[in-house]
């Protein structure tokens, strides 16, 4: 059975698109045919992060309006032939998406793909609503700060009451916490919430911690999802996340501060 994953947060700029690109690539690399959809109509940046912006001819809205077929609009990824991207339109306004239209496209995608990753726009308005409405699983991307955690909590409330699964009284959406842009040093200084703090507030299953990392910017500049940078900490964090999601048991990393040279020499915590 195909599964629809929504990557959502409420708050903007927390790493949803970075995460969508990384996990879609990760799932495809593990051999699962995967599609990733940009729901951020009007902004459109998933294609930049996937490095396929020059190949965009048709978009999500064209397909909904029947101006192009799904196969015409889907772009095959340059690094992995099991991964396809459905870009958002930059020129339309957010009303171009309708629940019925989105539902039809997802149904069609479900016939061909194992995983469908929906990159949600920020906020809790229509775009975010449509991105999560049909989801089976939700990846809640949160930064370790109070406002982001609060917005995530808000989004969790919406998932549990306004999604298709909730409305039809089906088994609820499975919710996973992805704590992103985590910096153990800043947690230690009291500038950020710790993993424990966030889990205490949200009481949610932690799928993984993604460290604050320069590799993310490098990856988006070069148009390759950071998970392909296997040497990078963020890349490894996303690889762990994909593996855990697929059922592997991997210990959590990137939660404690890096030991400097001093720490390495003298060991201990």
């Amino acid at each position, binding site marked *: 059975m195909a599964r629809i994953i929504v990557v959502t947060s409420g708050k903007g700029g927390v790493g949803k698109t970075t995460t969508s690109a990384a996990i879609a690539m990760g799932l495809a690399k593990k051999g699962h045919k995967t599609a990733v959809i940009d729901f951020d109509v009007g902004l459109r940046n998933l294609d930049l992060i996937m490095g396929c912006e020059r190949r965009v001819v048709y978009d999500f809205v064209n397909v909904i309006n029947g101006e192009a077929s799904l196969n015409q609009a889907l772009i095959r990824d340059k690094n992995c032939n099991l991964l396809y991207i459905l870009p958002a339109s930059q020129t339309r306004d957010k009303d171009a998406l309708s629940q019925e239209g989105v539902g039809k496209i997802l149904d069609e995608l479900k016939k061909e793909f194992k995983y469908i990753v929906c990159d949600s726009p920020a906020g*809790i308005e229509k775009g975010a609503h449509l991105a999560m409405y049909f989801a089976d699983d939700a990846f809640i991307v949160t930064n370790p700060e109070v406002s982001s955690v609060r917005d995530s*909590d*808000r989004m969790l*409330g919406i998932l549990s*009451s306004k999604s298709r699964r909730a409305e039809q009284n089906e088994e*609820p959406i499975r919710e996973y916490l992805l704590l992103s842009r985590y910096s153990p040093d800043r947690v230690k200084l009291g500038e950020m919430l710790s993993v424990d703090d966030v889990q205490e507030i949200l*009481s949610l299953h932690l799928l993984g911690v993604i460290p604050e990392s320069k590799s993310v910017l490098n990856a988006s500049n070069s148009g390759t999802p950071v998970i392909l940078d296997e040497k990078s900490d963020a890349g490894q964090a996303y690889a762990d996340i994909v593996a855990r999601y697929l059922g592997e048991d991997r210990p959590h990393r990137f939660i404690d501060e890096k030991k400097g040279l001093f720490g390495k020499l003298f060991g201990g915590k």
Partner: protein
Amino acid sequence: MSTDSQQNDHHSPVLEFKSSTFSVPVLVLVSNDAITIEQQLQGKIHLAPEFFKNSPLVFDLQELNKHDLDIDVTELINIIRKLGLLPIGIRGGAAQQNQQALELGIPVHSGHSTAVSSGTQKQQTPEPEAATPEPQVVAETATLITHPVRSGQRIYASGDLIILAQVSAGAEIMAEGNIHVYGSLRGRALAGVQGNTEARIFCSDLQAELISIAGNYKISEDLNGAVLNQPVQIYLQNHTLVIKDI
């Protein structure tokens, strides 16, 4: 509203139209950001919960439209209703916004009008918000919630309310009877909302933003360190809230 409907009928009249002036709060919006609107509105309500409870409200979009800021009227109405206010009019809306409002039964007011009919039916009890975890009925008088109550969600129970999970900051739980929370209580808990002064709140970890029994409330700032993060019960004694550990 004029009185031109007075015609000499054969039957004695059973009704009449009267013109009358009401004072209704008008919500003037200067931003179209739904999250911020909701947060700030909630903040205002927080300051005077009894005043705002079930209060009629006219919302004014003139400023927004002046600056070409579009807003989803349906969503706005939902937010207003969710916060326990009863929207009874839109003012300064664009044609399409007025249409949206009309479809939801909200009358359109012209900019200068002050008279507002009281035609909207007043709800005796706030309706349980759509955005709530599925409540299960335990006994005839108790509502059982097994999922966390998240920020922005609101639960109303006409009897007792039992929650087996946490209540997040920004969530609101209300019961005409007692409230039991077997998780952290970080949001707002209002027991005895229809005036039952015997109602109590029990919780295993008190971190609430607000606690209230029959309209007597304390906000988090009033809670002293000795009761914070503790299992407590809260009840009324001589119109004062008493918080005791259990």
